[in-house]
């Protein structure tokens, strides 16, 4: 069911990374996996219908749901359907925030469901009439202040992580708009989403890093290097990305980097990725890390995918970039394209 961590065999010279064929994606639903949730839901439905013949049917329904969700969550965590491997410096912080919110919501979910089930299991009061309760100041105060306090706490505790994701001084946006954090980025690129692909434009490392990345993002330069659906960087690089879209709202999602940011028409949204890990093994095989679109953007939204390659060092990245640059500045057809490359002869031909 989960194919993260599987490798695509790499062909070519040692040290170079050329991926043959399509990488398997993060989630490849097999036929059985496809039917599993349906089967479980169906069983629950049947169980509930049967339970309708008895008293306490609603309590049974909530009880079943609760048990199923717990089972599903535990099973997901056990079988690796939990968070993917982390590859950026902020990943641990983001995971921490996620677990915090998860813990808080789980506590309240169990609490409220428990009370609900308990209530439903109570015998009917004498005479079969429900009591009408009006106002309880203490209770109202508690359910007002506790969630408010928790929300404010969550809002504050995530601020530094958010600023790191954006690569800017914490809180600066409110005061003065976008201000890049003072430590310089190693690599600058624009990522432009469109239906249905990601177009990357890399700032050429031969050129001095622009002072204003927002201005650079709006003015293409002749030296820029272009790529489609491939985000390349190297381990330990600070990558400044300027996110744009040419049509509708997209959301640039890098699961391994715990990074997700909407792209809004008419805006250039800055972001910073501090890579921590390479997805290229010692033998040159590549683990699949994907780019996904996380905002429904049209019919082929589900296919708006790309791949991330974090090279082991800057040299390896520069090799890729230079190859990309060379293929972009071809003055004659490369040998590979002449004559027409034919598919390998297959058995049935």
């Amino acid at each position, binding site marked *: 069911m989960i194919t993260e961590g599987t490798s695509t065999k790499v062909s070519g010279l040692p040290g170079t990374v050329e991926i043959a064929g399509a990488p398997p994606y993060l989630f490849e639903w097999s036929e059985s996996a496809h039917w599993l949730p349906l089967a479980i839901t169906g069983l629950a439905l049947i169980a509930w*219908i049967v339970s309708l013949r008895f008293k306490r049917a609603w309590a049974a329904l909530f009880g079943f749901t609760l048990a199923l969700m717990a089972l599903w969550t535990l099973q997901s965590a056990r079988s690796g359907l939990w968070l993917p491997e982390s590859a950026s410096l902020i990943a641990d912080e983001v995971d921490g925030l996620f677990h915090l919110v998860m813990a808080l919501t789980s506590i309240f979910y169990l609490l409220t469901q428990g009370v609900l089930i308990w209530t439903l299991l109570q015998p009917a009061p004498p005479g079969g009439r429900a009591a009408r309760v009006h106002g309880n100041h203490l209770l109202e105060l508690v359910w007002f202040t506790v969630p408010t306090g928790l929300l404010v706490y969550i809002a504050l505790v995530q601020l530094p992580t958010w600023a790191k994701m954006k690569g800017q001084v914490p809180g600066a946006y409110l005061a003065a708009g976008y201000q890049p954090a003072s430590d310089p980025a190693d690599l600058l690129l624009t990522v432009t989403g469109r239906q249905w692909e990601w177009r990357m434009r890399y700032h050429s490392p031969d050129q001095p890093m622009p002072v204003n990345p927002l201005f650079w993002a709006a*003015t293409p330069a*002749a030296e820029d290097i272009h790529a489609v659906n491939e985000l390349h960087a190297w381990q330990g690089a600070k990558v400044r990305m300027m996110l744009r879209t040419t049509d509708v709202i997209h959301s640039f999602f890098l699961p391994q980097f715990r990074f997700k940011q909407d792209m809004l028409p008419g805006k250039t949204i800055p972001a910073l990725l501090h890579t921590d890990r390479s997805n290229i093994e010692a033998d040159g095989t590549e683990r699949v890390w994907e780019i996904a679109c996380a905002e429904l953007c049209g019919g082929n939204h589900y296919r708006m995918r790309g791949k991330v390659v974090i090279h082991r060092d800057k040299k390896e990245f520069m090799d890729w970039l230079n190859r990309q640059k060379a293929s*972009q500045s071809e003055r004659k057809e490369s040998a590979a394209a002449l004559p027409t490359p034919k*598919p390998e002869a297959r058995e049935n031909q």
Partner: protein
Amino acid sequence: MPSMIRNSTKAADSLRGCLVAGLLCLGCMALAGCGVTEIPDSVVYPLRSNALVFLEKAPATAPPGFPPPGKPEMSLDWLAEQQVPLFKPSDLDAKPWGPVWREELNSVLVRHFGSPGKPRVGAADQPALATLAAELFLSPAELERGSHQYRRSCLHCHGVAGEGAGATSAWLNPLPRDFRQGEYKFISTAEHKLKSGFQPLKARPRRADLLRTLHHGLEGTSMPSFALLAEEDIQALASYTLHLAIRGELEYWGLLYALKEDAETLRAIEKNPEKEAQVRAQRLISGALEWEDPEADVEEFVAREKGPLLTAGLERLLERLLREYATADKNAMVPLANPYPADQPVPQTSIANGLKIFQVQCVNCHAGYGRQSALRFDNWGGVVRPANLTIPVYKGGRRPVDLYYRVARGIPPCGMPKANLQDGDPAHQVWDLVHFLMALPYPESLPETIRRQIHGGAKQ
């Protein structure tokens, strides 16, 4: 007790409600075709019903604008207003022999191209066609794989028969390509000429050209890159696209020869009015034979043929089309060597020379360097806009060699002629033009005087 009875009726009601809801859910899933991967045999390629466009020369005036979103067919009305003849397949019904012609055409198409579920090129009992198809990697297995992938990736824009009129197409600009005319914009082969002029000059793409489009997409259009598909799927898609293009083109000629009213056909019909269908079929045969041998004897071919004439002509035409595609590699344009060294910056004189050539050759259509381009009709009857060259977005690719192909061979289906470089040194001229085009969007790459002229006074 009464309350117990009431309760149990309630429970029974809920039970019934749940069962009905469950069955409805299952029914919806079945309707949506959940889990169906086979394409049923009932799915067939529809015979062309929209008007054929055959532009012998560009219409006199430009279209009034782009058709509004959702109404791409409006441009055909504009063409009709300009007295450009449109050939409507429905006109066949008015002719006594029309339905027979249509049926024969359809049976040839079904025999040689199968259906979306079982696509093929060339009926199995015709070894000559099968050999050619195999050479082009159009085996049934390859095409079946391509057909499945086409349904996932291409159908919603390009349509079942490659007519470029899928569900989303009407809202796109530029429109998705209609493959059924056998014309291509971004390819690298030179045109070949026919001696007589009935057939338009068409260049066939190399397989590499199709693969390049599939891999890189067409930037600036709605065609995305499919580079992340498995290489086998991309190859299969290239094969399937060829299958649709060849099927569509055979259908195109089959309908056009039935409807076209050129002087020679009309003369022949006048002499023999009761045999109009045969006369038209013979014209089709002569068109099919002309490519390899302009002096070919149609009479002799007809005399030899025992079966129906149209079928024979279409099969001969199919063989010709396959042969043309198979020889596309031989027609590949080999770019002249760039006279300027690759490892040094392009000299400013080259860019300045390029501007001079641009002002003579290109500026009529790419007015204001493309910023004020006038719209025009393309060979599909659609409306296109000559590119704005001050923006570095290149549909056919951004490599210098891609721009070379665009300049040196033109984009004939949308009326872009090849650069006319007769006097002087062609290699220098064409590369100067390419260098100018490559520098044009970037003010800092242009010589000072040219920058002022194009991008205004302020230095960026």
